C-alpha cells in the first residue's frame, strides 16, 4: 500500500477477459465504498495478443492516470505469457503474483526470473470447466485476486458478486450458478496457501 492504494496489474491475452476481470474488480470494490480505477491498456487489439489491464483501489480519491509500474499484485491469466512478457517487472518484493496454471508453486517459480515475493497458482481451467462446463478464466482469476489482495472479505465479495451476476445475466440466469461456483471453488483452492 502507498498513497495510491493497492495497485494491481493484469496480464492476459485478447479475448480471455482480463480487461473484464479488472473492470469487475473495480465494480465490486466500488460497492464496498472504495475509490476505484479499472482500465485497460490498448495496443493493437486482437484475439490472442498480450494485453494489460490495471486496478487502483484506495480509501482516498484516485487522481493518478498513468499505468502501473510497481504493482502490489500481478495476475497472470495466461501461463504462456511467462515466456514472452516480463510479468514480474516492478512487482514489489512484499507483493504477490497469481498465475493461472495447473502447475504447483514450486514448478512455476523457475519461470519468474528470481521473483522473491509470494507466489500463488490457481488452475482456472479446471475450476471453470468443472463449474461452468466451459473455459472462462476471468471469474476464477477475479476471485483469486480478491482472495490474495484481501481488498474485501470473502463473504462480502460473494454477496456482491451474486447481486452483480444476477443483474448482468438477467437474461441468462442459467450461467449465474456456475459462475458463483467458480468463485467459491477458487477461494477453497487457495485457502491453505493464504
Amino acid at each position: 500500500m502507498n498513497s495510491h492504494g493497492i495497485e494491481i496489474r493484469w496480464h492476459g491475452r485478447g479475448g480471455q477477459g482480463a480487461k473484464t476481470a479488472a473492470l469487475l474488480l473495480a465494480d465490486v470494490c466500488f460497492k464496498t465504498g472504495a475509490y476505484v480505477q479499472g482500465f485497460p491498456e490498448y495496443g493493437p487489439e486482437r484475439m490472442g495478443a498480450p494485453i494489460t489491464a490495471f486496478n487502483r483501489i484506495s480509501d482516498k480519491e484516485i487522481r493518478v492516470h498513468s499505468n502501473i509500474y510497481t504493482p502490489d499484485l500481478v495476475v497472470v491469466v495466461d501461463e504462456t505469457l511467462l515466456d514472452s512478457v516480463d510479468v514480474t517487472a516492478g512487482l514489489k518484493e512484499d507483493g504477490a503474483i497469481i498465475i493461472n496454471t495447473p502447475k504447483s508453486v514450486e514448478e512455476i517459480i523457475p519461470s519468474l526470473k528470481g521473483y522473491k515475493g509470494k507466489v500463488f497458482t490457481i488452475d482456472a481451467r479446471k475450476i471453470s470447466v468443472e463449474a461452468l462446463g466451459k473455459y472462462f478464466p476471468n471469474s476464477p482469476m477475479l476471485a483469486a485476486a480478491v482472495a490474495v489482495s484481501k481488498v474485501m472479505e470473502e463473504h462480502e465479495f460473494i454477496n456482491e458478486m451474486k447481486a452483480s451476476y444476477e443483474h448482468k445475466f438477467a437474461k441468462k440466469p442459467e450461467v449465474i450458478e456456475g459462475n458463483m461456483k467458480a468463485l467459491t471453488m477458487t477461494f477453497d483452492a487457495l485457502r491453505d496457501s493464504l
Partner: protein
Amino acid sequence: MSKKDRMSGNEAVAYAIRQINPDVMPAFPITPSTEIPQLVSTYIANGEMDTEFIPVESEHSSMSATVGAEAAGARSLTATSSCGLALMWEELLIAASNRMPCALALVNRTLSGPININCDHSDGMGARDTGWIQIYAETNQEAYDNFIQAYPIAEDKRVHLPIMICQDGFITSHAVQNIELNEDQDVKDFVGEYNPEEYLLNTGNPIAIGPYSISNYAMEARKAQEMAMENSKEVIIEVAKKYKEKFGRGFELFEEYRTADADYIMLIMGSAAGTAKQAVDDLREKGYKVGVLKLRVFRPFPADEIAKALSNCKAVAIMERTESYNGHGGPLASEVRAGLFENGINIKAVCYTYGLAGRDFTVEHVYSIFDELKDVDLNNKKVKQHRYINLRTKEEN
C-alpha cells in the same frame, strides 16, 4: 440529490446525453468515442429517451446532419475522435459561422500518423481555430459535469456558438472510476427546453442560413463571431456558478491547485492534470513550493487570467499533448507566452511535449520537470524552450 456510481468517461457522457434528451444525434463510429453513440442508441431502443438517432455514412455527414438539424431548430449533437474530427473540418467551420449552438462529445485521440488509436490532443488542437468553444476534462466526473453545462453555454443569446466537450481517449473514456450523478429531473431543469429565436422550420419568419456573403459583409460576420466567443467567457463562468449552486461541484475557466505560494507551476490540460496534482502533493511534503494550473476552457482562451495566475511564480512548465511543428512548442505554449508578454510578465516558460499517441505520463515525470524548472530558475540552467518528455531515445536537448 446525487447518486454515487462508477462508470467510464464514455458511459458518463452517454448518461448525460440521456438525461438531456436532445432532439437529434447523427453519428458515425470511431475509436475511442464509439461507445457514446452505441450507448445512446441503446437508451433510445430501450425507450429511455426519444432523441432521433441518425446512423450516417461518415463524419462529414454526421456534422453536416448535426448542422442541418440545428438549423431546423432542433437541439443537436454528435460524437467523434481523431480522424473523424478531421473529416468534419469543413462543417466545423460552418457550424460555428452559422452560429449553431450544437454540441460535440470529443474523445481525444491522436491524428495519423503513425496510425494509432491512443490519446493525445492533436485532434482538438487541430480544430482550435474553427470557432468552437472547447472545454477539457480531467476525469469522467468532469466530462459528465461539462456536458450538462454545454447547451446552457452554447444556446445563450450572447454566445450562439457550437461547443466541444473533450475527454482523454481511453485514459478517461475507458477507465471505470467513481462518479456522482445528478437526478434526471434536475438535469432537465438545469438544461431547460430549447427555444431557438430563429430557425428554418419557423414558417412564420422565413430566414436563410449559410448564404453567400460578398466581401462587403463577410468580415463583419467574422467579427460578430469573434465577439460571441469573447462573450462566451462570462457565460461559461455564470453557467458554472449556477451548476455549483444546483449540484455542488464548481468549475472555473481553469483550476489553481496549490498555486497561491508556488514558485513553480505546471500548466496542463486533461487527465494528466490528476497525475500532476498527486505529484505536487508528494513534492509539497518534501517542502517544494509547487502547484498545478489545470486549464479547463481552451476556447475562448483565458490569456489574461492565466497570465495573472502565473504572475507570482518564478517559472512555468507548459505541458503540450500535441505538436505544432513550428519549431518552438505547441499551441498552448504560444498562447500562454503571448498572454504573459502582453501582460508584461517576464517569467521562465518551458514547453514540454508529453503523452503523444498514448505515451504514458507518470508522477516521476512531473517530479523531473519540477526539478528542471528549479534548476532553470536557481542555477540559470540553459534548456531548450521546447522539450520532449519520456522519449525512448535520449533527446538531444
